[in-house]
């Protein structure tokens, strides 16, 4: 069954068409990679799925429900979480608070926070324990009390994933999680993503502009170029697809500069 079903999605900004008639389905439990050169419309697609942009045309269905144009916080509540290409942490908060803020258990603002009666401190402690558990799972336990913006780059990327997981998503969207990482870090990240998918039964869509990174990782690869999907299928087949090679390397005889 398709967890996410995108049909005929177009996103236009004035005269610019960022995504054009995109069809994409993501099966439950699968790991799909969305690749393409810079400016291909990958992040725009993520932004529509998470409600930051409204689709100009077409539909986005999650578990059969239309979510195109819904408010981001409502889409999050349905079970879609994401990370951002240019890391967006709550910079001056501690790593622990970044994760706590995303926990459903923390969603009691108001009178009960002021009065602090009865089970308040128990649930507060449970939320903190859950947040610490997530930090440990992503090997961030040692950074729990450090300011988010003081963390090393790779740790900041993992903290974003921890924060996304804290919302208990069914679908996790990772926007270029490997950007700026060296080969060893990339390998570790690949292991992490694989583990998350397997252990938590998560469905994952991952953006990268590098085919090789997603090759041994994803079940399926979809390739975007200039807002259009030019290939969709098993990683090996996609890698050999002439249209994909052309998008990345250019046509024969074309000036490479």
């Amino acid at each position, binding site marked *: 069954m398709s967890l996410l079903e995108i049909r005929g999605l177009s996103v236009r900004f004035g005269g610019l068409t960022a995504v054009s008639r995109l069809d994409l389905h993501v099966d439950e439990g699968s790991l799909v990679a969305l690749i393409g050169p810079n400016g291909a419309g990958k992040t725009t697609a993520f932004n529509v799925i*998470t*409600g*930051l942009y409204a689709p100009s045309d077409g539909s986005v269905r999650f578990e059969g429900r239309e979510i195109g144009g819904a*408010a*981001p*916080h409502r889409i*999050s*509540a349905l079970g879609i*979480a*994401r990370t*951002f290409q240019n890391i*967006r*942490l*709550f*910079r*001056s*908060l501690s790593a622990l*608070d970044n994760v*706590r*803020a*995303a*926990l*459903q*258990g*923390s*969603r*009691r*603002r*108001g009178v*009960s*926070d*002021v009065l*602090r009666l009865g089970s*308040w*401190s128990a*649930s*507060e402690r449970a*939320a*903190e324990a859950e947040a610490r558990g997530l930090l440990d799972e992503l090997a961030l336990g040692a950074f729990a009390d450090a300011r988010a913006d003081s963390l090393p780059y790779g740790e900041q990327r993992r903290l974003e994933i921890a*924060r*996304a997981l*804290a*919302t208990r998503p069914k679908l996790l969207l990772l926007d270029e999680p490997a950007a700026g990482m060296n080969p060893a870090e990339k390998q570790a990240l690949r292991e992490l993503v694989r583990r998350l998918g397997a252990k938590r039964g998560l469905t994952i869509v991952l953006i990268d502009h590098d085919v090789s990174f997603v090759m041994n990782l994803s079940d399926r690869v979809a390739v975007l170029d200039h807002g259009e999907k030019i290939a969709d299928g098993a990683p090996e087949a996609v890698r050999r697809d002439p249209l994909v090679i052309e998008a990345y390397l250019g046509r024969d005889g074309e000036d490479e500069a």
Partner: protein
Amino acid sequence: MRVRSLAGAVAALGALVLIDQIAPRLLNPYFVTILSRIGIAVIAAVSLQLVNGFTGQFSIGHAGFMAIGAYASAALSVFAGAEGLELAATFVPISVARVAYFPLALVFGGLAAAVVGIFVAVPALRLRGDYLAIATLGAGEIIRIAILNIDAVGGARGFSLASSAHPAVDLRFEGLGGVFAVAALTVLAIARLVYSGGGLAFRAVREDETAAESIGIATTRVKVEAFLVASFFAGVAGALFAHSEGYIHTNSFGFVRSFELVVFVVLGGLGSISGAILAAATLTAAPELLRGLGDWRMVLYSLLLIAMMLSRPQGLLGQRELWPISLLTRGSR
């Protein structure tokens, strides 16, 4: 833990009674008035800190909500409270009736300000940054000028808290204990609201709205709630001011007052309750204590502000809290 909270509450109550009884005997009335104004400034500053420092929305019209609270509670006292107090005095001692009535008047002032706060917040919080600041400044001025034109509350003559039908009833509320009790409750409420799992939503909105939305925080709602709570407590501060001064005029709630409150939160450190309290206390006392310098006092006051901003642009405390605040929010972070 329960025992310790209880002990803390008893100690706080004892301190309040002590301030209430001792301060007027030791100090001359002038200093008592300054102390009372410090208490009121603390309430207003800490409530503004919730919006500006913790939720990251720059509001510079806070005095408008103080005006609503001041005039609404004063009108309640003059048009209904005086009669009620006189009536109650036939059943119970007047001092008891007064103790029961004044919290009511304060809450009424706060609620009136909160209602107006909603009407301002819902459209204004769609704006960001400079635009929001200008909208709140405008709202504050609109409120002030609207009140200035209501003849029932004195218009340009100002509004005196005395009922012509019941001249014997004293509607003024004196005593530092009450002012500081309300200030302490305000600090307690806002500190606990902010420093809790749920309160992280305010700080998340300040840090990054897009990221906050992406983890399920309804950012517009959080901003409106912050504004609502802040305007409620600003209204309470205004009500306290009205009932301790005994006479109010819209001039007390102009944009100069709003700016003063902004200075308190910025100088104290955006995102620090302790900082807002410290700044409100020192900067309320400073112009008075510098009075001996005559014409030079405002020059010195300005130099003090400039020196502060140059040496500590993040404010007195940055985002840190001093231990008394941590004590209030024990059990969370």
